[in-house]
């Protein structure tokens, strides 16, 4: 059975679970528990293990969507999942105290996934707060990762159409990077 694993990463409250719910064609498997870090993000519950959804492409071929916990204490899971993944959608909420630092942190953590696949960055809640502009996110990327042209979009994780655009941009970018011979072969994508 062909499968393509896409990870949804980013800090707590960025909208990972919501984004997977928008895209998935099955009832999303959600694993949430009480949020013990309400001083950081005022959510009653948060993902502690995984969210899982999927899109059936053709026959038994699937795109598997995994949302992984944003807190660093779950980082042991990140290394397991990124080995299986083809690409990553990194969501960062614009009303985070330092959204650019969060973006850079997660990109560094998952850099190997960019090198052998691809990454798209979605800035959520950009419509409810005046945060950094997309240009500022892109400039920060250029400063910290010179030469990388990673797609950065504003997104509403609740909007299926927008999330489909993000997913398709991720996949076509991975295929183009492969066609230009830019992917490393350290892990099987």
């Amino acid at each position, binding site marked *: 059975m062909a499968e393509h694993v896409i990870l949804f990463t980013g800090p707590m409250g960025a909208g990972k679970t919501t984004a997977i719910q928008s895209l998935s064609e099955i009832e999303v498997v959600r694993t949430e528990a009480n949020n013990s870090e309400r001083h950081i993000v005022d959510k009653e519950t948060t993902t502690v293990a995984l969210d899982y959804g999927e899109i059936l492409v053709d026959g038994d071929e699937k795109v598997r969507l995994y949302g992984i916990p944003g807190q660093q204490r779950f980082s042991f899971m990140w290394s397991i999942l990124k080995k299986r993944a083809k690409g990553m959608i990194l969501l960062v909420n614009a009303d985070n105290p330092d959204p650019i630092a969060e973006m850079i942190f997660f990109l560094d953590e998952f850099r190997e996934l960019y090198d052998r696949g691809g990454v798209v960055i979605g800035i959520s809640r950009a419509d409810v707060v005046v945060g950094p502009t*997309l240009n500022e996110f892109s400039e920060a990327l250029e400063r910290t990762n010179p030469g990388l042209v*990673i797609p950065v979009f504003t997104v509403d994780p609740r909007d299926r159409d927008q999330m489909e655009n993000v997913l398709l941009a991720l996949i076509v970018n991975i295929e183009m990077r492969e066609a230009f011979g830019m992917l490393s072969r350290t892990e099987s994508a």
Partner: protein
Amino acid sequence: MTIDGNYVAGEPAPQQPGSFPVTVGWTQAAIAISSVMVLKTPVNLKMNIEMHGPLLIDFGRHAFSWSTPLEHFPLDAVHTGLETIPGGPDAPPMFELPGHDLDGLLWQIGLNSFDGAPAFWLSSGERYRLTRWPNLTQHSHDMRQVKMIAVLGNAYVSTPELATYSGVEVGEAQRLVNALSLMRILSRSAEAPAVPMAPETAATKRQSLFGRLRTRLGR
């Protein structure tokens, strides 16, 4: 029409005695915008467009104001006037801020000007590469454009190479290059070498997840 009101050949310009030369379409607007952006002087623009009211552009704040939503962007807009207005951080805003992100307007104007020919500020023999992706969740687009943008995000390519690699007509590729260039998110190089792309065979085309997922999602 240039920024100072002189007519440039290429579009119909029915003359109205004693008034600004009327133009149809967006080529002259693209030229005016590009000219102002290159100058980097604190100047804003007001375009009068028949049936669609004034279009106000604040370059310093990268914003615009227009009563016509971009979903109803008029391809055959009749421009009846163009004014430059002093801008800069100390000048009073021309409209209630924050306005709309200018990128969305530049995307539409760039795609719908020059009739598929190169924008006048581009030179032959150049290759192009993205410096950042356009914000696709906010711009009306199709999947052929996304594929072209992905090509430009990963290699310096000429417009004909872009068309070949993306499977589109050269004119369609040129429109996208014009738009991204007007948005100032393309870097240009006359020296960048050609970057070979793995040939797309029938098998690789069939294997493209992008293609299959597009079909599956009806896009």
